[in-house]
């Protein structure tokens, strides 16, 4: 049972997704292990670098969501230097961050996770990709998606310099003020984004929700786990991606804890398993009880499903309405169905678009001085944001010159790791019987973790149906019986 899987500490990219499934005498699943390569080598080589470099170093962990690391890092620097950025800087940051969320969520729905539903979970592998999606929804939609993502990326460049590895976040604010004409472009982009988000929800409604089979799959026990949920909320307990307190709800949807990011170590601890290089975060006050669900187990989830569960709704009108419909359809809060992540992601897309619209129309956006210069001596800083894939923690300790002595990062996918592992195990147990394995079953197992959109560079940016993945099946003597590879 102690099959060891080696994952390079620096590259995630050669680390394929790995699932090891162990069968018992009857050929049924004894246990399935899922591995996500982890990224934590960066924490070591940050040591000795000036903290001001962290918003440049950490995005290079991942070209998929560099903005999330850039923003968490920038917010950690605010805290490190105990500097409160002017309202204008916070608004610019959140507006740009919203544009990034829309872009990333759209990518996932149309290119990565969506094909499972839009094309169908049991459709041939060759069709479960963006081309299959376009075949189903039409080329015009494809043009719309491409056009929207292009416009958003251009807006991000305008404010943040670059999309991949942005350069605008500084302790106390942002590097560059926006001009009136920039603001107009943001307003136009946000208007388009709201329309795009509503349209995407309509696509989901027409193709997924009107199909009873799909709805059945979403609410099926195979894809359901009752766990705790984590998400950032604003002062009214509404979802916020950029700032706020961390709120946890229990498996019944009741508030379990609410705390400032700087207190996270009082609430979150990490569990080590001998078969994995990932440390599994869990709720300290509940404790690690193994890979089990329920209120007695400290396992929690992050990302869209979790965020909607952990908050009391959304702050913008259209998204609020969509969110109400979501909970009504799925039997009230909290929703424990992993596959509902896809729907929740689109609701968040609408929220991000509306939020971007609000901020773009704010007169503060063109403040010529969007920065407060830090004057305090640094010591320790914690920054938390909601990455598209869940809550992301950056924690730095420095000497009094601001040189990093210690860095700790808890990335979104890591926060979800325990629940993902349970999901894969449950799906494998539910689907693989008497040693029978085929491509359709493999996809159904994959669907269990794809819903989380694990930030697994190779995985998230390969088209579904061809996610680089190695699945190995071992018999009760630990002898490998099957190996399925998707390179």
């Amino acid at each position, binding site marked *: 049972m102690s099959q060891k899987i080696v994952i390079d*500490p620096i590259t995630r990219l050669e680390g394929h997704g790995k699932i090891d499934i162990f069968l018992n005498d009857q050929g049924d699943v004894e246990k399935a292990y899922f591995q996500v390569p982890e990224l934590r080598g960066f924490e*070591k*080589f940050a040591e000795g670098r000036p903290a001001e470099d962290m918003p440049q170093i950490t995005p290079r962990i991942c070209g998929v969501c560099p903005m999330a690391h850039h923003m968490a890092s920038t917010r950690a620097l605010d805290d490190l230097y105990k500097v409160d950025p002017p309202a204008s800087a916070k608004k610019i940051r959140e507006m740009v961050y919203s544009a990034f969320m829309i872009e990333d969520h759209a990518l996932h729905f149309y290119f990565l996770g969506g094909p499972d539903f839009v094309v169908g979970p049991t459709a041939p592998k060759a069709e479960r990709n963006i081309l299959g999606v376009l075949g189903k929804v039409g080329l015009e939609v494809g043009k719309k998606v491409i056009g929207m993502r*292009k416009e958003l990326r251009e807006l991000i460049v305008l404010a943040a*310099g670059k999309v991949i590895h942005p350069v605008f976040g500084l302790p106390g604010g942002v590097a*560059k003020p926006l001009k009136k004409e920039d603001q107009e472009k943001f307003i136009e982009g946000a208007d388009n984004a709201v329309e795009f988000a509503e349209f995407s929800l309509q696509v989901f409604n027409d193709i997924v929700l009107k199909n009873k089979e799909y709805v059945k799959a979403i609410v099926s026990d195979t894809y359901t786990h009752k766990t705790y949920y984590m998400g950032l909320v604003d002062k009214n307990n509404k979802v916020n991606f950029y700032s706020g307190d961390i709120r946890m709800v229990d498996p019944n949807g009741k508030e379990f804890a609410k705390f400032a990011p700087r207190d996270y170590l009082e609430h979150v601890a990490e569990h080590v398993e001998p078969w994995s290089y990932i440390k599994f975060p869990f709720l300290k006050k509940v404790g690690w009880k193994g890979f089990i669900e329920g209120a007695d187990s400290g396992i929690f989830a992050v990302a869209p499903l979790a965020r909607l569960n952990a908050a009391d709704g959304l702050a913008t009108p259209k998204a609020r309405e969509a969110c109400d419909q979501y909970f009504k359809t799925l039997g009230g809060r909290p929703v424990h169905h992993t596959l509902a992540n896809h729907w929740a992601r689109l609701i968040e897309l609408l929220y991000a678009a509306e939020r971007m619209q609000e901020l773009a129309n704010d007169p503060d956006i063109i403040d010529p001085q969007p920065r407060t210069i830090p004057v305090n001596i640094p010591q320790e800083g914690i920054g938390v944001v909601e990455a598209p894939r869940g809550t992301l923690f950056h924690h730095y300790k420095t000497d009094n010159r601001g040189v990093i002595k210690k860095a700790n990062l808890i990335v979104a996918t890591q926060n979800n790791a325990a629940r993902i592992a349970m999901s894969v195990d449950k799906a494998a147990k539910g689907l693989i019987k008497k040693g029978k394995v085929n491509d359709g079953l493999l996809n159904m197992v994959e669907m269990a973790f794809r819903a989380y959109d694990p930030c697994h560079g190779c995985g998230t940016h390969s*088209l579904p*149906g061809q996610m680089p993945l190695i699945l190995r099946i071992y018999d009760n003597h630990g002898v490998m019986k099957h190996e399925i590879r998707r390179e």
Partner: protein
Amino acid sequence: MKYLGIDLKKPKIGVFDFTSCEGCELQLANKEETLIDFLSLVEVVNFREISSDQSDNYDIALVEGSISRRDEIDRLKKIRAKARVLVALGTCACFGGVNHLKNHFPLKEAVREVYGENSVDTGKVKRVGDIVEVDLEIPGCPVSKAEVEKIVVNIVTGAEIKFPKYPVCVECKQNLNTCVLDLEKICLGPITRAGCGAVCPAAKAGCLGCRGPAEDANYESLIRIMQEKGFSEFLIKEKLDFYNAFSGVVA
């Protein structure tokens, strides 16, 4: 007509990633509006980011990332043996990039810090050029898609491939940006090869030199200016070291 040993026809192109963030590949895949035109110029036989088709038959290999494991070395050598032109794509491939910062720590310590007593196969971070012969280097963190497209067009048409010899500073001045050094930030724009459009200084962030040394750079002068501005030796060295792009060029 031949260029770099390639007939003037639709070349087969393969894109490969090693230790990196995949940002350079994404940069190529992301700009969908020119992707179709770009793809019509070449035949992509291996590009995991955008296609599942894989083939070992290619003329041009675009290689992203630095090299840090034994199996990566083997894989890179195989690619070199097959490719007629091997292009190091991006700062990690050309210089080691941010990954090389790992080399400042004893390897054992870095592994123990992350994985405790579990052993992992990892080595010193190397450039692609440290392992195999490289025909062309396209730097940038990430690469500029416009530049890569231009270069591929040049390969296809047999035109000469030229990089600007002058520094980022020239582009920045042409764009009428406020000088980042005047904003009291360290900027390597005066010594870094142009071609990026000075995107970082335009966003009021100092250049970190991801494109490597410009050909006629005056290092002594920049270092003197930075010293005069009161930046410590530690900070200047640290910036020069960021991507490992100036090692051996500046003391």
